[in-house]
């Protein structure tokens, strides 16, 4: 019988990094070494500990990383609590890749890009940002606006400071919600910061974060003159199968696992408001 997508592969966790108090980044390789499967930026994978649960996570590492995949996971439910408690060397099951991807090879090619992320919302965008950094010649200006509750809650802070900020072709603006000792950067919410920075409206925007942040940022972008066709986001709903069959992650007639998770706001606007 052919392989079935519901039968998972084994992945080995080779590195666990504590990013913030409630976010850890897990490095996963196949037991034979190397990546379990290839993917495109924005796609997701089903991770599971049998007996504990199975859930969909976006792949945080860039496809250009040929050695391993990474997942930045926030502790919030049953499975994620288990994942946070495990040690290096633990095997997990993994299946995918699922969903569409950010159109990095088509619509986004040659464009000026603006990434806006809030909190753990950086996880899916990090894959795109690193993809773009590795194929820098294919894209125009790149700007990242990233905010979190506090300095400690900035995911991948080390990579942002050491790699992104030292990169020439990429501008990074960080913000935190409240003033904090040892922070001399910007303080304030992401939507306001975006308005303050007043980015050029030629940019294509990729946005991810808590729903409330997305809502206000989108409104702010529209005020600045951005059109809905310029803004992409990535969605999340309860999923079980990952292939549009189990019937629960739909928004209208679109399945987030299959037709999403990446949607352009004009596409999302045509769908019922049920997410």
């Amino acid at each position, binding site marked *: *019988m*052919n*392989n*079935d*997508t*519901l*039968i*998972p*592969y*084994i992945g080995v966790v080779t590195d666990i990094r504590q990013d913030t108090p409630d976010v850890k980044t897990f490095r996963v390789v196949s037991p034979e070494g190397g990546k379990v499967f290839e993917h495109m930026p924005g796609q997701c994978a089903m991770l599971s500990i*049998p*007996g*504990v*649960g*199975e859930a969909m996570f976006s792949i945080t590492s860039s496809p250009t990383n040929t050695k391993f995949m990474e997942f930045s996971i926030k502790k*919030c*439910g*049953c499975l*994620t609590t288990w994942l946070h408690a495990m*040690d290096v*060397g*633990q*095997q*997990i*099951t993994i299946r995918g890749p699922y969903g569409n991807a950010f159109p990095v090879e088509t619509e986004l090619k040659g464009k000026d890009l603006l990434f806006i992320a809030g909190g753990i919302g950086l996880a899916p965008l990090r894959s795109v940002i690193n993809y773009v950094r590795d194929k820098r010649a294919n894209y125009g200006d790149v700007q990242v606006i990233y905010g979190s509750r506090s300095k400690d809650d900035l995911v991948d802070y080390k990579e942002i400071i050491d790699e992104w900020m030292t990169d020439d072709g990429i501008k990074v603006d960080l913000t935190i919600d409240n003033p904090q000792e040892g922070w001399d950067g910007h303080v304030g919410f992401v939507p306001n910061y975006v308005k303050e920075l007043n980015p050029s409206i030629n940019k294509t925007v990729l946005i991810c974060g808590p729903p409330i942040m997305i809502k206000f940022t989108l409104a702010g972008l529209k005020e600045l003159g951005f059109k809905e066709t310029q803004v992409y986001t990535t969605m*999340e*709903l*309860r999923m*079980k*199968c990952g*292939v*549009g*069959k*189990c*019937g*629960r*992650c*739909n928004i*209208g*007639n679109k399945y987030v696992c299959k037709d999403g998770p990446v949607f352009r706001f004009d596409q999302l606007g*045509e*769908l*019922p408001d*049920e*997410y």
Partner: protein
Amino acid sequence: MLKISLDKLDKLFEAIAASQTLYIPADREDGAAEYRKYESGMKLSNKLNTLRSAKDFFFPQTENLVDFKMEGKNIDVIDVREESEDFVIFGVRACDARSFTILDKVFLAEPVDSYYKNRRDHSTVVTMACTRPAETCFCGTFGIDASAPEGDAACFSDGENLFFEAHNEKGQKFIDSISSLLEEGNTSKLDDVREKTRDILKKLPLANLSTDNFGGDKLNEYFNSDKWGELSESCLGCGTCTFVCPTCQCYDIKDFNTGHGIKRFRCWDSCMYSDFTKMAHGNPRLTQLERFRQRFMHKLVYFPANNNGEFGCVGCGRCLSKCPISMNIVKVMKALEVK
């Protein structure tokens, strides 16, 4: 047309069951019909339809997907799939036969569901034309002719004889396998019976129900209809409609710890249940209104939007007779319809 006399049905069943597993609708003690594995002496039910739909054959209520053995930090994945045996389902009604094509559109779409396909490949569906449709029948609404069912092969009764007709290679193979029992027969009486059935179908109370105003193009209009509150008010949030439905195909995947391993199984799920879309951080369908809406929007709007206008209902009428509070797709369609 090839035929067999109805009083020789036993012989026919014996012959089929000799080479492969045969399932026929049989009466159980409480009077309802259900598909049962044929054993000598079992009688074909004369009920219009089985209480549970025929989807169980391809999409059972629970099935083991994969097993895991956990040892220390290691996980073993054990593929438990086995090649299905060949089987014949006899006496499937036109509505249930159509439900298979609807399920195919879900499970055989890429990536193919190998569990479903395995059973589908090994099955022969022999349908049976209806002669006494009930008031709850509305298959005609979805373009199904109860007197000419689909399936690999179909059979038609004129009250004395059962006539056979092959629809594809599989069906022809089935008829060939029983050809020694069949003989050429005159269909003039059968034509009368079919004519009469068609007349009755036209006279049924739901004969005029139409899907003309449903489909993918009025998605937001139906979604935002103010009728949902009133319609869903009495809904108990049970899963009766979804579980008796031949086309409801949503499922859940769960793990069961047996104490010496993990069994991952798939089971039917219902969009009527409160945890259907519940996540660690919230639930987009908080009240019964949203859940109720999802079920009917899926059948009448979303499914046709994704499948060239084909609806996700076959009009078998099971939910009409089984809903504890008699709220069903017909009432929803009538209340909702936007001309």
